[in-house]
């Protein structure tokens, strides 16, 4: 169990818009404070332990502002919204 941890090494599939934003959680920081689920309930819910469950796929453009605000409001800076790398 070694290689391949973390973000995917694969390139995004051809034709996917370069500006697609996805949500990633730094699980080593996340403490389940829950602000993100309150700020973007359309995309983020809570699991039974209080940690965020993020809807799969890119962030729809009309929610980008909310997601960015949630990222900046996270008290432990565990929420990241960015382009795929």
């Amino acid at each position: 169990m070694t290689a391949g941890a973390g973000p995917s090494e694969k390139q995004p599939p051809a034709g996917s818009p370069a500006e697609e934003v996805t949500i990633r959680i730094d699980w080593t920081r996340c403490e389940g404070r829950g602000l993100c689920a309150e700020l973007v309930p359309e995309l983020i819910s809570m699991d039974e332990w209080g940690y965020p469950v993020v809807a799969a796929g890119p962030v729809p453009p009309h929610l980008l502002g909310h997601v960015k605000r949630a990222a900046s409001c996270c008290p432990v800076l565990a929420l990241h919204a960015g382009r795929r790398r």
Partner: protein
Amino acid sequence: MRTTDRSLQTTPAPTAPRLLPALGPARLTARGQADGAASWADHLAAFPVDPRLAGREVTDLLARHAILGRGGAGFPLAVKMRSVAASKGRPVVVVNAAEGEPAIWKDRTLLRLAPHLVLDGAQLAAAALGADQVHVAVNPTYAPAHDALVRAVGERAARAADLAPIRVHVVPDAFTAGEASAVIRLIDGGAGGRPAFLHVVPSVRGVARRPTLLSNAESFAQLALLVRLGDAYADVGTPDEPGTMLFTVRGAVPEDVVLEAPVGTTVWDLLAGAGGLTEPLQAVLVGGYHGRWMPADVALATPLAVGAMRAAGGALGAGLVAPLPAECCPLHEVARVARYLADQTAGQCGPCVNGLPLIAGALADLARGEADAAVAARIARWSGLVAGRGACKHPDGTVGFVRSALEVFAGHVEAHLHGPCGLPRRGVLPVDGPLSAVPRQRVAADAVRGTR
């Protein structure tokens, strides 16, 4: 040059699986049953071409003959190297010999036998990429491997054999300490041994924020063999996955062994080479504790290759092949390993910390015949909640192991709802023993610099 930690000498040595003669050509294990590690002179005698070869050859050869990473993920080395080469900054090469899994001994065996072959591969990769540092992360609990590595590094430094100086880092003997991000963090001097959240892959930004080629120790040894053998490297193996691989075999075989075999050897043939089956089987665990259970008849016929295993519902992983005897409670085995994996959480990520113990507890109840009918549904729900929700792949790998077990042992799961099965609870798969008795080390004990 020996480790300075006295505790290693007072702890009973873990019993290393015996190395058996290779099936097919002995490449990694060309020195066969030799005692002790190859010195530089032994190494050159066994592998007669001088390793100081041009980096350009590496790229050309890798384009013709794929080497899939031997650490578990099976990711093509050439793709990683291209990604490193395309990224900004002077590259770094990291050899991962952390091997924190108690069931698997192939990297420790390889280092004990042929440390210079591993280091040759790292130096060839460094030359191809223009890297100026090589780091080796090693699990110190098996002293013959650790000591062979340190001695080999010293020999090379004394001879100014390498362009890129080599540093050895001792990793904690923990399952997740071998995760790429944990190894990078250890080398960077951070809290050693625990995985970290990475914004980008190590090949873009890893050690010291530089592009980092991190691969398993055997992958680098394979690279050294490829450069030595040229196109003859592909004389064995499958067209897509040429060469040989090291396997660890334990379970319904005469003894725990490590052996080299061509990629594409069927599980049946490998087991025959490991001394043959000692009793009837009910299933085979392939890959490791992040691998997959397979029904015995499916597993035995499947070639040990990344693609073939995947197609058959298995996973080649890091080459564990563990035939499970029919005469033992499989759910007891599964529950023990699940408990071990839950205990091996690095304790950082909420879903893993909360979910794995619940899954392990439910499996233990089930194995004892004390679970209610909804247990499978609960395990499935928790599995869905931990997979993909950690800084590393420990939750994902654990869930893969558990899910495949519930599928392959579905009949046992059903029967256990009405009480224990009565089969012996044997504990075939190792989960602790001497390895866990060794105190964990948190700092690099050895740092050996080469010249220049």
